[in-house]
């Protein structure tokens, strides 16, 4: 599989994440969509680093992918903690039901 294959897969992943973010009502599902988007970017970085290595430093893409994984984990930790405390307070986490703030 060449570079095009990897890029196609990552573009599909990214689009799926985007669609999930826009269409799903459950907060946890929305978070899963965001994870898909982040992982699509990580896949892109690794593919580019493998097929078109930069002259200056060959590891830039791989290191960036590692950082994206860390970032996804950190965001998931904070987001799930906040979702938990929302559930404790309001007993629901549906994005369409959380509409106390308007204007």
């Amino acid at each position: 599989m060449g570079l095009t294959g990897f890029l196609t897969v990552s573009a599909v992943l990214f689009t799926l994440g985007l669609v999930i973010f826009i269409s799903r009502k459950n907060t946890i599902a929305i978070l899963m969509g965001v994870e898909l988007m982040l992982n699509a970017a990580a896949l892109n970085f690794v593919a580019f680093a493998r097929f078109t290595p930069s002259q200056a430093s060959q590891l830039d893409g791989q290191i960036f992918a590692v950082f994206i994984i860390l970032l996804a984990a950190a965001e998931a930790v904070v987001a799930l903690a906040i979702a938990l405390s929302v559930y404790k307070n309001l007993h629901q986490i549906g994005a369409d039901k959380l509409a106390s703030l308007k204007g």
Partner: protein
Amino acid sequence: MVNTLPYLSFIPAHVLMGFAILFFFLAKAVPFLRRLPASLIFFLVMAGAFWLETMGSGSKAVFFDMIQVDSYSRLYNQIFFIAIAVTILMMVNNDEINEEINWEIYGLLATVCLGMMLMTSATNLLMTVVAIELVSIPSYVLVALNRKLPVSKEASLKYVLFGSFAAGIMVYGMSLIFGLTGTLDFAGLWKGLGAYSSAGTAIYFLAILMTISGMVFKIAAVPFHFWCPDAYQAAPTPITAFLSTAPKVAGLALLMRFFSYHLTIQKADLTLILSILAMATMTIGNLAALRQSDIKRMLAYSSISHAGFLLMGIAVLNATGRGVVFFYIPIYLLMNLGAFMAVIYLSQGDRFDIASYAGMVKKKPLLVVGFTVCLFSLAGLPPFAGFIGKFYLFKVVIEEGLYLLAVVAAVNSVISLFYYIGVIKVMIIDTEDRPSKDVQAGGFPVVFVTACAISIVFFGLYWVPLLNWADKVRLLF
């Protein structure tokens, strides 16, 4: 292995902030340390960091050229330290945050501060991501800490969802740029994008637009502004004041450094993108602010429209524009922090609807006058400092020949008058329909708001000190 320790001597304030983060998170567990006054310690840390940044000189690229220390980053960092010091003062005088968790809050604020310091000096996409997330993730938590308003958790959840969405788009855009140019360095990537044969095609614009979405999210510009009103309304008021100033300034600083490496052939396209962004941001922010009944929500939309005005200075893409943005930022800080401090004390308990301010001038005349000066200055009326700031922004835009942008901004200035004056009318002309309990305000808030108002008037009449300060802001110098 490369030894990075010698580099640390070039970034003493970052080191101090790193120790502050460790101290605040660890000291909570040590009974002896826990009895120390956390607010005072954090205030001293800010003073120390400010002193260290004023001592520095020269310009140097450190940590494998990932961050650039120069007068630009040092002066912006000083502004963050001032904003955080004021936030501490507000928190001490506010009861929306449980004081028992002060240690953790200061730890989070120190982390945000370190992130902002990295944002002003990042010259690499990887460092950009790390810095933006270092600011974002603690901010999500800070918004959720309002003990009087359970709905702050909900606002925080929305904030974290939009934040991670923006981060996802940003890293995908960065991966496209990396694929196009093979580098993550700001200077290298603009050179690479310029050399790329299909510059000006869809993928070129897509990569740039997706990459700046993370920074656009931090300054709460359109189309990543949806989190802003909710988060600002529900967060504890000192945190709202903080979020509306320091991270926004950091996002602007990062945008300016990112775009400062552009090549001449790319200038027209980039100016167009940034002008559209600026016009959309100020118009949508202002139109939404017109129909707000909650003061914090209104100030949130007002801060969105101010992000639009500040983007004008970035859209011209030259050193004069960067100087003018820096000139406006201390003024913006004075107006916004003064206004939020007044809001804390004019709001009785947790009532933030504008209607409850009726007849406030009779109870707290001095505070209301100070608040009025801040609001007039936000609207950009002479002789207040906000007018001078806006005047210089218009000047650079017209000098660059961006007449449409100048006209849209002028119309928006007029629109913004309506909602600022609406608040002033309620406070001064309207009378109370029913008597409410007296506003409990000590001496400090009145002194603070009055000091802000006096400096706004002072800088409105004599702005040379600010101009001299803004003159020192140079990239790589």
